[in-house]
């Protein structure tokens, strides 16, 4: 690792330019994100009479490397969800709970990414909620001021002491220290509820599971548990629905991407929820985010890949793509109904989609294969979640590139 020193002839007011800089870390793609060779660039410092040139060595004081903040709204609990595991996998490395800390911590940390669970910002623990008669979905059970303050601190490169909500005991445990990572993901029920927190997000995703699919999934999840029955699962979903519709669902309109999971239309009366119709609703006009398209951007397409070149097993795969309006926003919607049964189908589909943000041919297929055991690996949920991971990578790289450009600008000023 190279130790890089940046020197200017006459020190500008900012002290960071005279700092001995941190060792340049190899970017997580295995190559340095910024070139470390002395010949990487020259900096003309205006105002200096001799117009001397100074070699610009790479500069990344950690205070200028702002973490990218991602919000993920999901009802399935936190941090251990499949979406998060796929996301962290795109950036490399496995995400694990903080070592040596509270074993019931909800936080996941990998080399580049830290995922925190917004349940940690509950202002009322389980007893408190019972006492005040509010569900966890209710904003009154959550401390948005603290959430805003801490997300802001991370964005500004400062560590935080974040409370831990213990899902086992239902109590708030002593806080854990979180250091600013490259990518900071806040996952939970209310990432986009508070307007101030929304301002801090660089990208946001809402996972919208339809009632029928939610029911089918919860049956799969809970039926084995002693005490649960079909009725109790139904009752649980129904009882939570009013609060869910009032407080959680409206966040959809603020998300950059909504992944909507619906029952399939390929099989009439399929109520097992095994074959899924998944729609990726992508907002237009978001900086650094190029929506995926099929064949011709902005047009409306219906595509069944199975035919002469590709044989699929029943019920096959159906895609559709087109522009739409979603809660008064211009969006593009890519939809996949059906299942992947073979590797061929996956790579075939990948090769016909555009703006996928892959760095090499077959990257999505590779990612899906890496986690073939994850739920959703054979349908649109896994596929679109992987795509979203790559889109987040785009946002990250674009923001880093912007930052790399600004030190030059500020030095010239």
């Amino acid at each position, binding site marked *: 690792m190279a130790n890089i020193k940046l020197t200017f002839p006459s020190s500008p007011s900012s002290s960071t330019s005279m700092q001995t800089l941190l060792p340049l870390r190899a970017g997580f793609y295995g190559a340095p994100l910024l070139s470390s060779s002395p010949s990487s660039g020259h900096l003309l410092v205006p105002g200096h009479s001799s117009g001397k040139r100074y070699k610009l060595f790479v500069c990344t004081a950690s205070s200028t490397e702002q973490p990218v903040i991602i919000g993920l709204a999901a009802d399935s609990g936190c941090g251990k969800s499949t979406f998060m595991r796929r996301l962290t996998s795109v950036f490399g490395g496995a995400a694990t709970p903080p070592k040596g800390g509270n074993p019931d911590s909800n936080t996941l940390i990998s080399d580049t990414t830290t995922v925190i669970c917004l349940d940690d910002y509950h202002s009322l623990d*389980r007893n408190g909620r019972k006492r005040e008669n509010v569900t966890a979905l209710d904003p009154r059970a959550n401390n948005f001021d603290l959430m805003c303050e801490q997300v802001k601190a991370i964005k500004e490169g400062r560590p935080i002491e974040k409370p831990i909500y213990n899902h086992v005991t239902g109590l708030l445990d002593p806080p854990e220290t979180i250091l600013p990572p490259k990518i900071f993901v806040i996952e939970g029920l209310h990432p986009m509820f508070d307007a101030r927190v929304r301002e801090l997000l660089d990208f946001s995703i809402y996972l919208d599971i339809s009632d029928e699919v939610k029911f089918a999934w919860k049956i799969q999840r809970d039926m084995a548990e002693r*005490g649960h029955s079909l009725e109790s699962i139904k009752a649980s979903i129904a*009882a*939570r629905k009013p*609060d869910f519709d009032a407080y959680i669902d409206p966040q959809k309109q603020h998300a950059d991407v909504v992944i909507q999971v619906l029952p399939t239309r390929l099989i009439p009366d399929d109520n097992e929820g095994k074959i899924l119709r998944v729609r990726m609703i992508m907002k237009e006009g978001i900086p650094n985010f190029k929506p995926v398209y099929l064949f011709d951007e902005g047009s409306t397409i219906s595509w069944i890949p199975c035919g002469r070149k590709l044989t699929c097993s029943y019920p096959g795969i159906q895609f559709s793509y087109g522009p739409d309006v979603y809660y008064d926003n211009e969006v593009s919607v890519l939809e996949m109904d059906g299942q992947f049964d073979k590797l061929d189908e996956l790579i075939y589909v990948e090769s016909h989609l555009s703006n996928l943000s892959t760095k090499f041919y077959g990257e999505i297929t590779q990612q899906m294969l890496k986690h073939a055991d994850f739920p959703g690996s054979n349908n649109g949920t896994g596929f679109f979640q992987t795509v979203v991971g790559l889109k987040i990578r785009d946002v990250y790289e674009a923001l880093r590139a912007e930052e790399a450009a600004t030190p030059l600008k500020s030095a010239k000023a």
Partner: protein
Amino acid sequence: MSRTSPILRLRVVAMANPPTDINEVLSQRIKEAEDVCVADSASKECAVAWDEVEELSAEIAHKRVKEGAKKDPLEEFCKDAPEADECRVYED
């Protein structure tokens, strides 16, 4: 008989502890929720009771996944020592 040192006897006071097994707690809460909701299924109390059941069910499911994800000991070892001989990867 001489005693070299006083024997400290710890008295463990049995307290009425709530069941620590999370599955037990879940069963209890489901019964409670069903009771609460008999009176008024649209009441806040009913929603709060089922919300607690949902939270516990989710946590149990997460723990199950975590247990199931117990990996191959070789993979675990190679995560920390990728340069070890056993962890060499060949790409022909």
